[in-house]
């Protein structure tokens, strides 16, 4: 029962006190105000006899019924009071803390803000306050939160693969090792990252254990770029490109916007440099690459060439740009016109031209890039990180084999026993080391083979610090106590140096303060050192020590609150690049010697996300493949080799071979196969957790130390059976429908509203319906439905339907969107969207509320890739006999992406067809979905032209994904009902089976903002949410700032400008749904002198 507020009665005698004139007069208004202070219905219950009687009656009846039905009762659940809670916590309200994580690839870091509810981190976003970052993130960052809750993480110590306890490790190894303090034969194998504290502790460890040596290994760290930089700028010198300042960018096999990030915040910088609306100069991107990447998809001119040939292209470019003498190249097989026009264009924009090369490219290419950048005066900052370059895995194996290593500490994100180059035989080598101590988050193959395994913490569970590429110091602070009792890398190093209990003896430390709640820094709060938090507190001491050294002047509390120390940066370095000599050029791949390119997995990166369901189900941005990797192959090559999608092949290089399915991909260089690393293969024996086991194909046997990523001389043999590939989009072409509209810079300059007449928009007949509906966006006070032709009767009594203060809308700028999936995964995290598993994706039941529609276009749209079943011969022209030599026309295939979520139509087709009124329009313009009213007829999904509605075919949140078909016979606790439940956003319903769901424009955030505005407004009528103060999850996540969301009724809101942008168009406007989400057309900036320039960016200009 709700407690009722009893108003104190006025004393009968003496002075009368009153609090307002209303009370004095005892007016009717005051009385009703008094009553209204309580929840609706509370007062009625008291004043209205009938209701009260009814209440008693119903109670009696209900009790009686309950008596009859006592056989069934719900399980007893207890509410536990939150007595001992986190500081600043208001139950139900989120707290936001700043932290950071190392960036994938080992350079720089991602400064973050983490949303926590009741001590549970639920969502990760970029830190908008950071000076060099936009606040966007990527799919991996978004999905990393799920890894923290992953129940398959390492949950305890292992001794020779068998569970043991920390004390056993300390007693059995650590104490003795520490006391012996001997560095003889001690080796550390680490992952590169930018943490200064770790570097310091590692240096201390090396000093304490004199003679020990540090090696580093990451699957994807080739080290060639760093090696070139070391040679040019001295050890620790690093070149950091600035894409914002670059008007011409040439990417040499570098997916700098996707999986091979360079610079502080490349996507945001590039997007800012590409802005067209303010009339400024728009940048132009050239891309030379083998298979499509996100970067290649954004490129204005893309040159399709095998990865091994990038060196030749770079040399030819350098010859034009910096006078490099590139002898020995057979120019006939390269598109020299492309190369020379590109070089000319770069030179023409001297000082604003930038060349970048991918990390998989050899050192020589990076030297050539440095030479070109120097010649072009490229916007590249060179800094000295002071980082030492460690030896690689090959040296470690050599040292092991020569018997030098006796104790090996492995603390790398990779799994060397599994994913090291095949020729190193790491498993065999590690077996020779007497003591291998593995420290990691996963019990992977290395962990199982090691003498000891120490569980590591997730980055959200530990103190630490990182520096961005330019050296801005960021603090990593824990959001939660280690879920499974792991030890952070810093703690681990500390434990080698000194006994943990001794270190923390009397050092009071202060914890961080939330960043968004309250602007002023609160006084430091002392955390009493307790035995159980020793390790965590210990790391804090170490981080604070580093902090003092790096950013001595800054206030620690302030830095922890905002997440970084503003004025920190690396010192500048310099060096003069010199052209490499003695370049060895390789032959073009051909049918007998194909080239295999190994690239990071768009879902698994190097394998560390292999057990992350969100990532596994996040479709590859290019191929739309989920839950697998496949050998991507060009259409021409596939046809030449007689391969079709899903065909299993054996790919052999020398005596090493792998099996993988083939998937044809447009724009792939001829005679190349592109495979992604990071999958453990179909062998169920290799257990990597519930999600990742048995997924994908292991490509590591093809890797060698000499050719870790680009492997020449491969042959392909068809195995004669097929593998099911779970693609979320099986169609490649827009089929002549102007869905993702694009134009060129020239078209834009001529008619900036060119997009509004593309497609069938020019043929839309006049609306001749008698009923015009409401004009939701008219801001005519309380009667906003005024519409010229509306008669008054239509309005009467309907004003409540329209909120005069808020009408929400969204624009998605296709010009900036790179198609990276960050929005999609962010939405998954924010809105508790389940994963459905490979089988369900194959069945076409993925649940993403915002998806990325990807289309390929080319001149002959239909012939090219009209259907995946058809034979396609665009790469199969008469010039095929001399592979490599082809006109750019053959290669003019462009990739365009379009994020599609519910468009929140004003005239929503879904609403009219729902028989039970489960989807209705809200007063603020949302197409609302009422889950508990939905019976699941799915008619709305059929009638949605955008196919934005998703149906819960099974209890995805309740049942294990491999037992969906077992129904109630499956246990009601799946992978998602244990620890991963803690990730759920408490403000969003977790949907049951049988209901439709879809994008809600993050209605929970809207409601929160509206309530906030109402509370702040008090008695005034100013209940409008402040302009641009409300963001939705996809918008927060977008690294390119392509998504804008706001209130059409507030002129100060940026959305109003977005909607008035001449590039703005509605998707499928012809069918008259009046969507609230609209798109801004994409502009390409082709160089007219380039071959095939007339075919760039015009794919939709002639469409009807």
């Amino acid at each position, binding site marked *: 029962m709700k407690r009722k507020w009893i108003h104190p009665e006025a004393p009968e005698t003496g002075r009368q006190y009153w609090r307002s004139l209303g009370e004095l007069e005892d007016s009717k208004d005051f009385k009703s105000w008094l009553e209204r202070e309580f929840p609706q219905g509370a007062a009625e219950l008291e004043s209205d006899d009938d209701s009260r009687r009814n209440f008693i009656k119903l109670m009696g009846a209900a009790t009686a019924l309950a008596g009859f039905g006592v056989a069934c009762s719900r399980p007893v659940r207890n509410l536990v009071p939150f007595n001992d809670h986190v500081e600043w916590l208001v139950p139900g309200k989120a707290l936001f803390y700043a932290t950071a994580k190392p960036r994938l690839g080992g350079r720089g870091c991602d400064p973050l803000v983490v949303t926590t509810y009741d001590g549970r981190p639920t969502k990760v976003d970029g830190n908008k306050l950071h000076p060099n970052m936009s606040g966007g993130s990527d799919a991996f960052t978004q999905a990393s939160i799920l890894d923290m809750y992953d129940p398959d993480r390492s949950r305890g110590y292992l001794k020779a693969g068998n569970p043991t306890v920390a004390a056993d490790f300390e007693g059995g190894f650590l104490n003795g090792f520490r006391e012996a303090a001997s560095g003889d034969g001690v080796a550390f194998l680490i992952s590169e990252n930018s943490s200064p504290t770790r570097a310091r502790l590692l240096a201390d460890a090396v000093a304490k254990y004199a003679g020990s040596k540090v090696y580093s290994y990451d699957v994807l760290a080739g080290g060639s770029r760093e090696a070139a930089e070391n040679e040019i700028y001295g050890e620790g010198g690093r070149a950091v490109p600035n894409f914002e300042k670059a008007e011409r960018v040439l990417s040499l096999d570098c997916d700098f916007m996707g999986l091979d990030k360079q610079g502080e915040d490349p996507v945001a910088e590039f997007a800012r440099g590409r802005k067209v609306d303010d009339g400024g100069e728009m940048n132009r991107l050239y891309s030379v690459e083998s298979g499509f990447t996100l970067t290649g998809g954004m490129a204005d001119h893309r040159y399709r060439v095998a990865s091994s040939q990038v060196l030749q292209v770079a040399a030819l470019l350098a010859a034009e740009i910096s006078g490099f003498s590139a002898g020995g190249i057979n120019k006939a097989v390269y598109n020299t016109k492309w190369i020379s026009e590109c070089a000319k264009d770069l030179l023409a924009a001297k000082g604003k031209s930038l060349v970048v090369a991918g990390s998989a490219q050899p050192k020589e290419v990076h030297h050539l890039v440095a030479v070109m950048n120097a010649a072009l005066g490229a916007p590249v900052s060179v800094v000295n990180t002071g980082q030492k370059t460690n030896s690689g895995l090959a040296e470690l194996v050599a040292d092991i084999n020569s018997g030098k290593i006796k104790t090996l500490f492995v603390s790398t994100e990779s799994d060397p026993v599994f994913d090291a180059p095949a020729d190193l035989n790491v498993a065999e080598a590690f077996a020779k080391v007497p003591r291998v101590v593995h420290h990691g988050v996963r019990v992977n193959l290395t962990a199982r083979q090691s003498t000891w395994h120490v569980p590591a913490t997730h980055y959200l569970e530990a103190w630490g610090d990182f520096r961005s590429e330019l050296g801005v110091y960021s603090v990593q602070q824990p959001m939660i106590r280690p879920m499974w009792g792991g030890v952070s890398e810093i703690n681990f190093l500390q434990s080698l140096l000194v006994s943990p209990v001794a270190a923390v003896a009397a050092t009071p430390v202060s914890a961080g303060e939330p960043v968004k709640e309250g602007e002023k820094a609160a006084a430091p709060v002392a955390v009493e050192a307790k035995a159980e938090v020793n390790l965590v507190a210990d790391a804090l001491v170490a981080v604070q020590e580093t902090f003092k050294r790096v950013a001595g002047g800054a206030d620690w509390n302030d830095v922890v609150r905002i997440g970084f120390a503003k004025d920190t940066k690396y010192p500048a370095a310099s060096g003069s690049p010199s052209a490499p000599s003695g370049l060895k050029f390789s032959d073009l791949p051909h049918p007998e010697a194909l080239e295999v390119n190994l690239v990071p997995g768009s879902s698994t990166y190097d394998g560390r996300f292999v057990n992350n369901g969100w990532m596994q189900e996040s479709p590859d941005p290019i191929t739309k493949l989920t839950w697998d990797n496949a050998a991507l192959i060009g259409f021409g090559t596939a046809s030449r080799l007689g391969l079709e999608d899903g065909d299993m092949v054996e790919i052999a290089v020398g005596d090493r071979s792998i099996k993988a399915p083939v998937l044809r991909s447009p724009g792939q260089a001829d005679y190349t196969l592109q495979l992604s690393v990071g999958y453990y293969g179909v062998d169920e024996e290799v257990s990597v957790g519930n999600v990742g086991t048995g997924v994908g194909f292991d490509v590591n046997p093809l890797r060698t130390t000499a050719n870790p990523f680009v492997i020449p001389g491969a042959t392909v043999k068809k195995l004669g059976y097929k593998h099911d590939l779970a693609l979320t989009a099986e169609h490649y072409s827009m089929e002549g429908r102007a869905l993702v509209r694009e134009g060129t810079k020239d078209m834009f300059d001529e008619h900036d509203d060119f997009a509004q007449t593309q497609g069938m928009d020019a043929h839309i007949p006049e609306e001749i319906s008698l009923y015009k509906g409401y004009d939701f966006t008219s801001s005519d006070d309380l009667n906003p439905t005024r519409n010229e032709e509306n008669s008054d009767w239509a309005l009467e009594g309907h004003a409540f339907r329209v909120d005069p203060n808020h009408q929400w809308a969204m624009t998605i700028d296709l010009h900036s969107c790179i198609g990276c999936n960050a929005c999609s995964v962010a939405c998954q995290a924010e809105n508790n969207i389940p994963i459905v598993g490979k089988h369900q994706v194959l069945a076409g039941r*993925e649940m993403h509320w915002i998806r990325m529609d990807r289309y390929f276009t080319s001149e002959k749209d239909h012939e090219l890739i009209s259907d995946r079943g058809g034979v396609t011969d665009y790469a199969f022209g008469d010039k095929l006999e001399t592979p490599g030599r082809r006109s750019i026309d053959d290669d003019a295939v462009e990739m365009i992406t379009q994020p599609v979520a519910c468009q929140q139509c004003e005239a929503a087709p879904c609403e*009219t067809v729902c*028989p039970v009124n489960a989807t209705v329009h809200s007063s603020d313009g949302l197409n609302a979905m009422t889950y508990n009213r939905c019976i699941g007829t799915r008619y709305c999904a059929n009638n949605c*032209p955008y196919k934005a509605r998703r149906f819960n*075919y099974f209890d995805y949140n309740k049942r294990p994904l491999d037992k969906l078909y077992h129904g109630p016979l499956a246990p009601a606790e799946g992978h998602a009902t244990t620890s991963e439940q803690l990730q759920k956003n408490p403000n969003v319903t977790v949907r049951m*089976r049988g209901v439709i769901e879809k994008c809600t424009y993050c209605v929970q955030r809207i409601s929160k903002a509206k309530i906030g505005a109402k509370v702040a407004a008090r008695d005034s009528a100013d209940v409008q949410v402040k302009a641009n103060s409300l963001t939705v999850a996809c918008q927060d996540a977008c690294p390119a700032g392509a998504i804008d969301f706001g209130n059409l009724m507030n002129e100060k809101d940026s959305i109003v400008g977005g909607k008035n942008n001449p590039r703005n168009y509605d998707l499928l406007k012809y069918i008259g749904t009046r969507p609230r989400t609209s798109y801004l057309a994409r502009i390409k900036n082709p160089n007219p002198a380039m071959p095939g320039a007339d075919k760039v960016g015009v794919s939709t200009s002639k469409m009807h």
Partner: protein
Amino acid sequence: MASDASTTDQPIHPSEAEGVAREPLVLNNRSMAWVTDRICGIVENRQPLIWWVLFIPSVLLAGLLGGTLVYLVSTGVGVWGNNQPVAWGWAIVNFVFWIGIGHAGTLISAILFLTRQKWRTSVNRASEAMTLFAVVCAGIYPGFHVGRFWMVWFLAPIPNANAIWQNFKSPLLWDVFAVSTYFTVSVLFWYVGLIPDLATLRDRAKAKLAKVLYGLFALGWRGGNRQWRHYEMAYLILAGISTPLVLSVHSVVSFDFATSIVPGWHTTIFPPYFVAGAVFGGFAMVLTLMLPVRKLYGLEDMITHKHVDNMAKIILLTGTIVGYAYIMELFISYYSASKYEGDAFHLRILSGPYTWAYYCMFFCNVISPQVFWFKKARLNLWVVFIVANIVNCGMWFERFVIIPTTLARDFLPGQWGYYSPSITEKLMFLGTFGLFMMLFLLFIRFLPVIAIAEVKGVLPENDPHHPDWVKLKEKRRAAAAAE
């Protein structure tokens, strides 16, 4: 008068007066007693072996239907093959299929009754029963295809605590009303027609239980004039009510598609096209059932070649209307110049993944009935039976072409998909056939398959002026005199 008539040259019967020799509706000059005996005999005698051979598997299949429904509700709609973009699969295909079959019965019983087509009398009872059983099978699908079966009562306009009404704009809700109305009226119509015959069975019944039960359902029928007067009025009124329902149900079902915006569904031609298709498919199913029944129970004298011939002609007519609709759809999509419409039909007939289904449909529904232009084909019962079954398949394919294949290719090519049914869906469809057959066999077993009273009404014996009857009477008299 009758004896006078035989001696004058004046035509005394309209058919003779017009000079048209009408084919008798009951052959071989069967008497009323024979009609009663023959029809009641089906109920009263032991069923032939073939009845059991059909009945037992039907019961098993109906049980299978129950099993698949339990699995469906307990596990989720995911046990079917539906997906995003094809959210409706076989369930709705089969719903429309069964509902379509349920059309011929009421058409025969109501419209042909109102238009005084006397040949209807020997086929109306069975086809009405078929209608009811088909609607039962159809009704299972929309009820169970929803995601939360236990919330299906939200579709009923009953007051609830949240004061939420149904969405009266939704064709699905119209469906609920249309189908339930249709079923109710059809049951009533069928039952009212059964009353005199139930009384006959009651009077002939020997077993106590049968007597009681038939008596109970015969509602005290004594066959008095007053009762007949009321009966015929009630029957006429129900026929009047049923007639618009024949047209409305399938029109409303077609609105499920026509009022949507999906290219390929959004077509004004749908209501007449669906009704014609339903009549077409319904008659095919009547023939499929009646031809074997006629043979097995020796009803050739009552269900004659004339009936088969008439129904074949209706199939030819409606099949051609359906063919016209198919071609008109293509023309309209071309003529509309709408990209999406044009593509929808282009994909349907030329380059889509389900082109085969379109041509299956076209062959079965438009080409195959054309043999009925030939009288020889209409009179060959094997040809009629085979064509009727081809049409049954064709009508199923029509719904398949309309529903999943359209959804698989709509506005955004990035979301194009493919649908194939799961084993559960297939078993469930098989199960509805089991249920249908089971109900129909039980109907044969327990109720008169032909309306006894109505057939008697079309016997020459019933009309004292009928020349046949006059001749027959003389013949019988002569025979008596000779004796």
